[in-house]
Structures are given as structure tokens and as C-alpha cells.
């Protein structure tokens, strides 16, 4: 059967698909037609549209406190329980826009960055907020919504014939998955940059020679048992072939960070920096959407979820984000990829200016910051305004659907189109409007 090169992660034509596509699949089989899936051609002229081809989405699990990072305000005092920022603020490349003192490298690049300071939703619990920020919606019970990565994978496919559309560097969960869009829009994942993606990298301890011996015996056995009468068996055989290729050296090389100059690797920093470096390599190879999870919580145990004493070492997290994000932006720029690659930094929710009994912070979902960089947008350092303690939105609120619409518009996906879960039309975003000022 014919494999759509943009969709190397499925040789499928049938039942996982929506009912529409399922029937189309029958038609396709019967007519020998492929199912077209080109969104660029049908992008409505009334919508704003960017020029990016890839997204690197950095996820700060636990909830990044906007007041201690990208939306700094006057300092508070933990001992006196006086609300406010934990750190001093510094000026940035954009006049009038400040960030916290632990973001010095990023501060110099704020002209390539927009901190969207007025993101908001209504969920204060981690799992539900993670779901909201990945799918742009609350759970419904009748539809499992796809993640942003899966939406983009579904709409744009991979950008080369060796690369999957969507790679996750972090733990799998349902919020990150493809929901009703099925396996072909799902992620490949890895949790450790020393290894390739789960299922497609040679296991530890199996040398190449041994792998070859295995493959050759398997090839003989398959040859003996080949049953070409049955389309299902043929499809599976085809999947085996593709899997052997993808777990081979060509795609595997992408994961070999040793190929990068040592100096650059050092600039990126620790495991999180290496994840960012790998995401650049993935994008170069044609991956459309990479999610990089920051929350390894080796630094302070709980990552960005800085209740109580968790806040004491928050600055280390911020510094790690600073060097990795700044290096990624400069590296992409150097490789002439920054305009084609939108870097997004998103999180579950923000944190209030008040301190809890242990000196840390609780959750604040009614106003928090997400960050966009590169991607050919007209950056302005910051967008939207909160009050004097970054507690309430003062102007230009950005809902989660708006944020989704902005990211989708930048990567040229029609953010008002409908997808189908069976019979049921599902808008890509829940009425989101892109921030058009970033596209002028």
C-alpha cells in the first residue's frame, strides 16, 4: 500500500479514523485515492496567518509563578507575609519591559520574545490544568480532545520523510495525546536524552551486530510465512518495514547529541538544556511539534510547584530556564531557523503574590504568563497587563483558546476549522482568536 510520507506513523486507512475518514478510507481503498490532508491550501483569508513551520513547546509543569519570572512586580517580604515578587527586576532589550533578575540572558533577547502576561483559565488542580493547557479545553466525558501537538501533527504532518510529526520529551499522559485524532497524530516519546524514542531505539546492551543477526533471522522467518493474500497482514508487514527503517541509523542520528559542538552543548546546560538542544535537532530533521518538559524536579524536588520550602531553590529553575531558552533562541537564529520555529513556554497556571505558611506560593489561574519567541512573529517583549501584584488582568486578556489560536495561526493552521469525532464536529479551538497584533 501507499504510505503518505507526511504521516509515517501510520500505515492505516481504517477504523481508528473518524467515521467520515473511515468511510473515506473505504472509498480510498476502492478508488485508489489517498485521503488529502492539506490545510495550507484552504487557509481562510480572513484569518491572521504566520509563517512558522515548527513549534518547540517548553512545558513548565507545576505552574510557573509569573510574578517571579516574566511579570515581575514590587518585591514582597516573606517574613512579614507582605505580598510581592521574590526577586529583583531587571530591564530588558525592550524598553519598559522588565523580567526577574534570574533571567539575564533572556532579558537581552526580549525583542525576539513576547511574554503574554494575561493568560487565564479556571482550573486550580494540577492534572485538570495540565489538561486544559494541553487541549485548550476542560474534559467532557464524551470526547477525548487532542493536544495542541496532536492538532498540529494532524493538520500539518511531519515536515520530512524521515520524521514523525510530534515528539514528546517527557512522560506520556492523556493530556498530551491525540484523543479522537487517533494514533497517527500521537507522539513519540522519550524521557532521557541519552536514549532515542521509546519503541524505535535499539535497546541498551543489544549491539548493532546482534541487532543485525536478529533482523536477518526474523527476515528469513517472515519470508517463509509471508501471506500476501490478506491486506491486514500486508499492512502490518509494511509497518514492520517502516519500523525497521525508523529505528535505523538515519533517524537515530538525530538523537545523537554528541554530534554537536561541545561548547554549544555546555551553553545549553544540563539535562533540560540538552532536551532543548535535541528539540532543535528534531525540528531540523522535520519534526513539526516538539514538547519539552522542564519539570525534572531534581533541582528543588517539586519543580515549579513551589509551595512552602519549594520556593527556596526556585531561582535555580529560573536560571536553568534562562540559559536553555536563551541558547535555544540564539542557536535557532544562528541556524536561520528562528523565524520558522515558534518557541512557546507554557505552564499549568501562575502563582499568587502572597506567601503561604511555609514561605512558598499557592496556585493562581486567573492571571499568569506564557511566553512566545521567534516563529516570525512581531515580538514586543510583553503583551497584556496585570495589576500592581500581577493578580488581576488589567488589559488584553488572553484565554487559553486565544493562546491556542495564536500558536496555530503562527504555524499556519486554520484555527477556526472543524475536526470530526465520528459525526461530531469539534472546532480546533473553542472560539479562540489569535492575537493579531503579533502578526502585523
Amino acid at each position, binding site marked *: 500500500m501507499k504510505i503518505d510520507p507526511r504521516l509515517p506513523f501510520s500505515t492505516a486507512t481504517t477504523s481508528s479514523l473518524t*467515521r467520515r475518514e473511515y468511510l473515506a478510507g473505504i472509498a480510498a481503498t476502492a478508488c485508489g485515492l489517498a485521503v488529502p490532508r492539506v490545510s495550507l491550501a484552504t487557509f481562510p483569508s480572513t484569518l491572521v496567518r504566520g509563517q512558522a513551520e515548527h513549534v518547540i513547546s517548553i512545558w513548565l509543569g507545576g505552574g510557573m509563578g509569573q510574578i517571579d519570572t516574566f511579570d515581575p512586580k514590587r518585591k514582597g517580604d516573606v517574613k512579614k507575609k507582605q505580598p510581592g515578587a521574590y526577586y529583583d527586576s531587571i530591564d530588558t532589550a525592550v524598553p519598559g519591559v522588565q523580567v526577574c533578575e534570574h533571567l539575564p540572558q533572556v532579558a537581552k533577547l526580549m525583542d525576539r520574545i513576547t511574554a503574554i502576561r494575561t493568560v487565564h483559565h479556571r482550573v486550580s488542580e494540577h492534572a485538570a490544568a495540565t489538561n486544559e493547557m494541553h487541549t485548550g479545553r476542560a*474534559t467532557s466525558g464524551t470526547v477525548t480532545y487532542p493536544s495542541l501537538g496532536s492538532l498540529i501533527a494532524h493538520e500539518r504532518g511531519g515536515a520530512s520523510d524521515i520524521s514523525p510529526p510530534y515528539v514528546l520529551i517527557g512522560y506520556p499522559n492523556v*493530556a498530551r495525546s491525540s484523543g479522537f485524532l487517533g494514533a497517527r497524530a500521537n507522539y513519540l516519546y522519550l524521557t532521557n536524552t541519552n536514549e532515542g524514542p521509546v519503541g524505535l531505539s535499539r535497546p541498551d546492551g543489544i549491539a548493532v551486530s546482534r541487532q543485525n543477526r536478529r533482523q536477518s*533471522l*526474523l527476515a528469513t522467518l517472515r519470508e517463509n510465512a509471508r501471506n500476501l493474500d490478506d491486506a*491486514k497482514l500486508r*499492512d502490518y508487514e509494511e509497518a514492520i518495514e517502516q*519500523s525497521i527503517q525508523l529505528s535505523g541509523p538515519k533517524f537515530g542520528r538525530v538523537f545523537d547529541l554528541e554530534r554537536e559542538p561541545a561548547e554549544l552543548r555546555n551553553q545549553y546546560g544540563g539535562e533540560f538544556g540538552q532536551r532543548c538542544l535535541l528539540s532543535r535537532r528534531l525540528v531540523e530533521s522535520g519534526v513539526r511539534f516538539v514538547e519539552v518538559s522542564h519539570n525534572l524536579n531534581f533541582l528543588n524536588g*517539586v519543580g515549579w510547584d513551589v509551595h512552602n520550602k519549594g520556593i527556596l531553590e526556585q531561582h535555580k529553575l529560573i536560571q536553568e530556564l534562562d540559559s536553555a531558552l536563551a541558547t535555544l533562541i540564539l542557536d535557532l537564529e544562528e541556524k536561520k531557523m528562528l523565524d520558522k520555529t515558534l518557541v512557546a513556554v507554557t505552564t499549568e497556571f501562575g502563582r499568587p503574590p502572597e506567601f503561604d505558611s511555609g514561605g512558598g506560593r499557592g496556585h493562581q489561574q486567573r492571571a499568569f504568563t506564557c511566553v512566545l519567541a521567534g516563529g516570525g512573529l512581531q515580538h514586543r517583549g510583553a503583551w497584556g497587563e496585570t495589576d500592581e501584584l500581577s493578580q488581576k488582568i488589567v488589559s488584553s486578556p488572553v484565554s487559553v483558546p486565544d493562546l491556542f489560536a495564536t500558536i496555530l495561526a503562527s504555524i499556519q493552521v486554520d484555527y477556526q476549522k472543524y475536526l470530526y469525532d465520528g459525526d461530531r464536529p469539534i472546532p480546533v479551538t473553542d472560539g479562540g482568536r489569535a492575537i493579531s497584533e503579533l502578526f502585523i
Partner: protein
Amino acid sequence: MIPISIYTKAITAIAIFCATAVGTIQAEPVAHWQFDHPESPQSLATQDLKTYGAVKFGQAGPRSPEFPDLSSDNQAAHLDGKGASLLALGAGEKGDFQFKNGETITIEAWVNPTSIASGNQVYVVSKGRTGMQKEKYANQNWSLRMYGQNSVAHLDFLFTTRVDKQEPQWHRWRSTAGFTIASGWHHVALSYEFGNPDSMRGWINGIPTDGEWGLTGPTTDPPVVDDDDVWLGTSMGRKASVSFHGSMDGVAIHRARLSDQEIESRYNREGGPRLTGPTSEQMPDLGEIPAGRVLYSVTEQFPRHTGWLHYGETLPAPTLHWQGDAFLLPRIPLPYDDWGIRSRWDSPVLLRMASDVDLPVGPQKLLLRARGLSRLWIDGEKVATTKADTVRYNGGRNPIHPPAQPPLPGVRPRQGNMQEVFAEFQVPSTDKTQEADQKHRCRVVLEVVVGGRGVRTESGEVCVAIETPDGQSYDILRPAGQDRLSLTQEVAQSTLTRIEQDLRDLDATTRRQAAASEDPFWDNRHTRAREWIAQNPPPPVPSVAGPTDTHPIDAFILTKIQHAQPAEQRSESSDAANFHGKILPILRQHCFRCHGEKDQGGLRLNTREAMLNGGDSGSPAVTPGHPHESELLTRIQTDDEFTRMPPTGKGLTPEQVSLIKDWILSGAAWPERPSEAVAVELPRRIEDAAFLRRLFLDTIGVPPTREELDQFVNSEDPEKRSEWIERMVADKRVADHWVSFWQDLLAENPSLISATLNSTGPFRWFIYESLQDQKPLDRMVTELVMMRGSAHEGGSAGFALAGGNDSPFAAKGHILASAFMGIELKCARCHDSPYHSSTQHDLYALAAMLNRKPLKVPTSSRVPAAFFDKQTRESLIKVSIKPNQSIQPSWPFAEETGAKDDDGIDSVVHDPNDSRERLAALITSPENRRFSRVVVNHFWKRLMGAGFVEPVHDWEGQEISHPELLDWLAAEFVSHGYDERHILQLIMSSAAYQRVPVGQNANVPAESRYFNAPDRRRLTAEQVVDSLHVATCSPFEAETLSFDPEGRTTMDDRLNLGSPTRAWMLADLKNERDRPSLSLPRNRMIMDMLEVFGWKGARQEPVAQRNQDPNVLQPGILANSVLTTNLTRASIDSPLAELAIRAESAEQLVDVLFRQVLSRSPSPEEREACVAVIAPGFSQRRVPDDEIQPVPELPQLPKVTWFNHAQSEANTIQTKNEERLRQGPPEDPRLRAEWRERFEDVVWSLVNHPEFVWVP
């Protein structure tokens, strides 16, 4: 309180107050609640009270002889202190309960509080401040509360004034005197004339007490009066911190002041001064214990988990007792409700183990392991104790403890957070001749308090052991006459396995005994069902040419095939190929959704005749030969938004439009579909080995063992297939294979961490046990709908939960309708279905039946009005329910199903007034022809690869490929007591099922589905993983599915799903926090494979049909995963290593592997290819014994749990565990590495053989 003779007759909750002990007649109280009969919630409601939460009746109340005025069997109500409460129905609106300025209230009650946290006020009875309306948070008219301070309870009276516009003013009075908490029954009373602060007076045990006003202080202002409710036991939205924990009785409200004398007369107590605090400890007298046995018992409602009984407290009779033969217990048995559905223990419980043991005379060293409070008695002497576990969650930063060390080398270490204590005990000699081996028979009793407030009711691995005479080890304590059992790792492990099996048998017995109470009800139902079938018989089995013993299923199938066009008449015309290959699929995809079986606008397009007739517009849709006069073409070509078809989506491609155009031009021919030879010819019967593999996979979910395979293949019994079918459908493991089908269909979605994202309780256990007990399906579904037992412990009540869902019962209505009636209500959640006849009202009426009362549509489930404003043409969707409209419970599917909600249903339910039970009966009664047919269709699809009706969950407008056969099977199902296994056996016995899998039924329309053979089916995800374990003879190893394996939180908070032994038992890890410390690496490793093959742990919605498409990760994960690598390794002492060591020859080894992995012998070519790999070096494969290098054991790592997961070290530990897992188990040192690797390569190749993942 009242004379015994009258008291014992008082049945109603609001009794007429009568003569006091001194004989004076009083004004009647407006309410006097007492709790003399163990009430069911329903019967209580008729007495003007309604219970919430864990209210227990039938508890010992204040009684004679201690209180001689009260009867000796006086009963009280017990409240759990977590929101358990009673609502006085309608009282809030009655003037009798409303007190204004100048009016006097007297409140009195008998109370026996178990605990009140210091500084807390708990509510006995109050009006207002229920917290049900936010703006009315301060509407307290009056209240009697108990204020706890340093173990003493004080009276507390609270009301508010001035809530309107101003800050509320709180007025609180507290008594100076008090009584010791948990010291038995006390009578409390207080009286107040509103507007007169000096009138305040309180009494404890008949003695007046003064007190002090606090908060805003005394006032002459009037109290807040509104129609808010009167509650007993809690307030403020049933907050635990204000909830009464303990027993209460005789709660009365008077509209008059009672005199000191009157109040004093209430309290008449015998006995000396009231003793408080713990009683002196004594070994319980347990009477005769059978020789050689350990007597176990579990007693519920132990007062506290932090201490033993207090004065005045008595222990109820044990709920459960059983016998064993050792002082070792991995867990306490499971509790079941009176239908045999998993419930929860009324915690804490007291676990006792007792036995007569022969102990060696002289000083002995004993070892005791218990999780919480425990004490060990020997012959009346308390010899060892453990303390209550009072560790509390500290933000995930509790200490990480080093792994437990064994007390002596080789001894099994204590597990998890078990305490371990040692005790010396001097065993006395019985006679004067002291001999070395003399023994003394002792009575040994261990008492352990299990569970308690805020902790799970789990015992952990309880053990008592005695040091061996040589001082080198420990033996598990056993009754006299039993052989010794060493507490070494190996012996203890096998003993635990044996005890666990005994416990499972005990659980099954408890469950089945309880369930038996409902058997007569179901026998009646099934008799009625058989009668119904007799009156409504299915179509007769057609007679077909051929052997007389043709299976009925085959008779139906052959009849359809024979009616298909004979081969020689098959239309080979290009017309037919074009129409059925190209045109019809386009129509089907784009038009039939609305114009197929349904006729939007009066138009159908699913026959040529209908097309030519046209719809409501009057003009034909198609004029043959004249495309430009054909409305159909105009509509699909136009850009006009108002008339374009199809109305949504991108529409037809230009190629598709031109195909339609050409078709109309050439006459719009609608030839009959040519029958493809492959669909109507009868393929050969599958060979024995393949049949057995298929049978095993379809029944128990894993392939046969080599022994079973050989036994079957070598048998010459002509009846062997039917015998093995019968054997396999009765196998216990059928539950293990079929449970996941129901988990999918019913959206079972338990959460280990936060119960959001539409998570449910783990009702997997309800399903699993129902299948194990071979519960008739109508009964299983009824019990599911009734949502019984404990929601978080595995009862069907877990189905009711839907974490974070704005309308859980609507979600459940959707699931039930699609799973059991083939009615898809997905769209109806927010609006009427555009492509179905179902409406939003249908769904919410169904949901209201589950709700047992009217239900509103939540605003978040409504299509916003703005949506319709934006539409440019008439919207396909409609919202027919008005905002805030309350939907009444009613049965919406009489027409679709045939079941009517009439008097007939009264006779098949316990309670005709219960709309939920009516719904269960309406779904499962024989009149509901959808239920039986939908279920049978599911089974057919599972075994044959396609349903008679597709999609299986959405029947509307779908054709049935074999209507008579479906009806016949459904009738078989109903008349055989809704027995799933009967249907499986029927299908499996047919010739159709036993043919080679060349069927092409799944992807063709119903008319072309012949079922001449089963479709080829890929293994389910669970089958792949389980088969991989069976093929490599590997035990299933995964971490306990819980982030709190030590039971320090409740099940509602942090679930424990146990240690998986089959793939279906896994659950989504929901590691949204991305923390390595919450990763459970072994489970993750297995899930990686499950998910790639279509399993979903996070079932946010029901899955009627899994994605079974091939994708590159499937062969990828089988080839490269850690799971495959580890299972295909000849690891130390593994069965695979044993196979290799014992092999006689390379050929024999290859043969064994083929049968083991693929259930067949290799072909000569295959044998040759594999032998070529392992023959070299075969004879030297074993390392000589004296050269074998011992494999060092890796040091154990500390345990990571929810309690310590936020420590950085926890991440390091789990990352190390992941790393170890990737390294895999150590190789068997008895095999030479070079040869072993090649051997493993053969095993690897066989599990990667495509054949491995297909059902033969």
C-alpha cells in the same frame, strides 16, 4: 428520659413527648428525634429525616442498667464526623422551628462524642448556616454545638444577627463546665429566650452550668430567621471540621423553657463516678479454638485507631471470622454488601488472630510485625505492642527511609511501613522434669487495629514469629501440631501465596453467600424471561441442504450465502464495479448520514427509486441522463452557503463531483452488488493447533501451554473441539480476558492521584468478580446501574463517579445507552443530535432516572446562544431544552427498544418507586429487544471480527446483515438466563467460527457481510502483553499500582489498585506532574506496549471499538522495548534459561520454542533457519559448574511513595530504578554468553514474528 414501657414502643422519629420520670406533664417538643430501629434511609425519610453520608443506626444508646429510666436495648445513631448527618425534612420552612425575638428555645440531646479536635466546634443540631447557598453563609438562627478543648467537651450555642448589607454579627455562648470526650453518654441541654441575653442557661447531665458570651457578645437584637434547613450532626456544607463524630440520641427542640428540675429528671445514672479514658487491658477470652488452627476475626466500628477501648465502650460481635494455620496474614479479607458487591469496612476494625501454640519452655524471643496499633498476648500476659501510625503527609517531604533490613540473615524483611518489635517471653514449664525439648501449650492472641480516620483499612503483612532454637532464624508462629514454617524469604513467599489464595477463596465465599440472597429474585426474572421468549419466539432455524447436524448458526449463514447471486450469474459489468466501487462510497460518506435510513427534508438517497422520487421540494434529486437537471449535482457543486450539500465540512472534491456527474449522465444505474467469490465460498476448517490457539485467545486471552497444545493435537477424540470449547468457556480466566472489553465499553477510568479528568472509581473489580462468578448479564448490568457498594473500593458505585464532569449522570446515561442499546447520545449532551433522532431531552431524562429526581442541564453543557447567531443557514443542531429547565426522570426509548415503562416493570423490581431501578429493569428486561441483540452483536464481533450491525454502539439507521440469526442468538441469550458463556460456546461451536480467517466482513456494507469465515483479528493490547509473558514463561512483574502503598491515606484520596498480574489490571499513571518520582517504571514499561497496541488507561469516554490499525510503533515496541528485551532474556533461574539448559538438541529446543511462542511446530525451513543460529556451540553452551560466577545481588533502593516523592532524592531513586529496569535482569551464569545471546535472538525473532500478533 421516658419510661421504658413507652420508650420501647416509640417508633416514629418525631414522637409525642410523654410523662417524665417524675410524672409531670410537659408542653410537647416541636421535635424529638430518637433512633430506635435500624432504619434504612428510605424508611427514615418517611419519618421526616434524611441521612447523608455514613450514619449508622442500631448503635448502643444510653441504656439500663447504667441509665435505669431507659430500656436495655435503647439504640442511637452514629455519625462518622466526616459530614455524616441528618436533615429534618421540611423543618426549616416551619414556623415551629423558627425563633424570633421574645421566643424561647430549649434544646436537649444525649451525646457520646468519640472525638472532637481541640479548638473545634461540632454541630449537634442547628437551623441555618447549612452552606447550601453561598450568600447565606451566616444565617444561623440557633444551634447546639459541642466545643472541644483538651479532651473536654463544652456546650456551645451560636446564632447570628444582622446579615443584610452589614457584616454578620456572631453571638456565641460557651459553658464553663464540660465533660470528658469519649467517656460514655451524657445529657446536654441549653435554653435561651431570644432578645434576652441573661436568659441563657445550660445543663450537663442535669446539672446547670453557666458560661460566657464570645465573638460579638450578648445581644438584644433579633436572630436571623429564614427558611434554611434544620440539620443534625454537621453544618457549613458538611465540613468535616464541624461534623459530629460519635453517637447521639434523644435530640429534642422545645418552644418553652424547661426548669432545672425537669432537666435534672432526664439524667438518672447508676454506678460510681464516671470513669474516663482507657479501660485496663486484658487478654480477650475467646473460648475453644479448634486444635491446630488459628482463629481470625475482623470486628468493625472499633472506636479509634490510636488507642484501645475506653470505659463504657463495648466491642460488637465480629463481622467476619475464619480459620488459618499460621500467624501470618498479607491482608484482611474484603467486605461485601448484601448483594455481594465490594463495599468498605466500617473502619477502624479490630483484627484478631488467636491460637493454642506449643512453645518451648524457657526464655523465647518473639517478633511482631504490624502496621498500626497492636498488642500480643500469651496466656494473659501482654508481651509486645506496636503503636498507631500517626505519620501525616508533609507536602511530599516526609523522610526517605533506607530499605528494611532482615532481623537475621536470610529472614524476610518487614515490608513497607510495618513496625517490627521484638519481645522476650519466659515460657513456664508444666512439670518438674525439665527436658530440653519440653513444650508448653500457650494461648496466643494478637490484636491489631486496622484503618482509622484518614488512613486506609489495610493491615499490611502482619506476622508473629519466634526465634529458632539455634538463634539463626525465625519461624512463623503456628498452632500446636503444625509443621514449622521458616520466615526465610523463600518459604515466607510461598506461604504468603498460599494464604493469599485462601483469602481469595474466602472473599469469593463471602461474596457468593451474600449474592445468594438475590438468587430467588433473579430466578424469577429468568423464568419470566423464558416465558416471554416462548410467547415471542425467534425466527426458526432454516433448513439447509447437507448434514442434518448443521449448527443453527451455520444454517442461517448458509441460507444467506445461498441466496446470494449464484457465481455464474455474478455481474461482472463495469457498471456494477463503478457504482459499488466509486459512486456508492461517495454517497455513503457524504449523504447517507442524513438521507440514508433517515430522511432529512423528506429525502432519502439510499435507493435509486428514492432518488428519483426526491424529497419535500417535490423535484427528483436525480434525473438519469441529465446531470444539469439533477438537484443532487447542483447542490454538491454550488458555492451558495445556504443550499450547499453536504452542509458541513469541505464537501466533495472536484474528482468526486465529476464521478457523480458521469454516473448520472450514463443513466444513474443502481446495479446489484456483485458478490465476491471470497465472501461466499466456504473456506477450509482451521487445523487443530491454530484452532486451539484461537480458542484460548478468545476465552482466556493467552495461548495454550505446550502441554495443553500437545494434549489437544495428539488427541484422537472426534469430539475434542466441543469438549475443549466447553472446558475453556468455563475457565476462571475468562474473566481476565473479557474484563477489559467491559472496562472500555463502560469507560472505567480510575485515577491514582487526583480524581479529575472524568475519572471513575475502580469498578473493574465489580466487573471482574461478576465475570468470575458467571453472573448473568442482565443481573450484572442491573447491579451496575444500581451503583452499589463502595465507590473507591471496587463496587459498582464507582461507575457513578465522573471526576470534574459537570453532569456525571448525563455521562453515565450516554455510556449505558450506547453500550447496551446501541443508541449514541454523544451529541445530545449539549444539543439535539443532528444525525440521530435522539434529543438532549432523551439523555437528561435518562440521567434523571439515574439521579432519582429531576435534573437540570448544566450551563457548561449548553451550546452558547452566540453559536446560533453566527450561523448563516439554519443550524443542523438544535437546543430544545430551555435554560434552567428541570428534566423529569422518564424512559425515553420505548420505541427504539420495545420496553415500556408501565406496570409490567413493577413486577421485576424491588422498589417500583426507584427510578434508577426501573431504568435498570427497562434496559435488561426481555421486552428490551435492543439489549439482548446489542450484547449478542458485541460478542459476535469479538469472535468473528465484525458485527451483524456496525457500528456496534450506534444502530440508528444501520442495516443488520443477518437479522434472523441475530434474533435467534438474542433469544438463546435471553432464554438461557442471559449467560454470556452460552453464547460464546454457541458461536465457537459453529463451523463458521472454526474456519481459516479469510473473512472480509468488517469493511463491507451489511448486505455483503456473509460471515463465511471470521475476519483476521489482531491480538488486543492485553493479549499481546499477556501472551508475551506466557510465551517466555515469565511472571508478570509490576509495582503495586498506588502512590501510597503504605495505606497512609484513604482510598478516596490515593487509590490502591494492587499488584497487576494481568495486563488489564494496569491503569493510567496520570503523571501530569512529570515527576520521575511518580513514574512507576515497571508499569510504564508495560503500558508503553499496551498503548501502542490500542489500550487506553485514561478512558475519558466509552470505547466500543478500539483502534486496531497497524502503526510503526507496534512492531517497533515488540522489537525494541525494554519489556521484550527483559522477557526474552535467559535471565538467572528463568524458565527460558531452564529450557536452554535442559534442551536435548538444538532441533528439539527450536521445536519447543515454536510451540511455546506460536503454538505450532516449525516448518522444515523455519527449523533449519533457527537451528542454524543455535546449533553452533550448542553442546558447549553450559558453563562447567566450577566456573559459574555467582551473580551479585543489587542493593535494594529505598521506597518512594506519595509521602516522600517531593524530595529530590526520590527522583534519583526512581531514575535509578528506571535505569536498572533498562539494564534488565542479570543473565543466567550457567549459559555461555555467546551462545545464550544467539538463543535469545531466536526467542526474540519468534515473538517478533508477525504471526505472534494475529489470532490464527
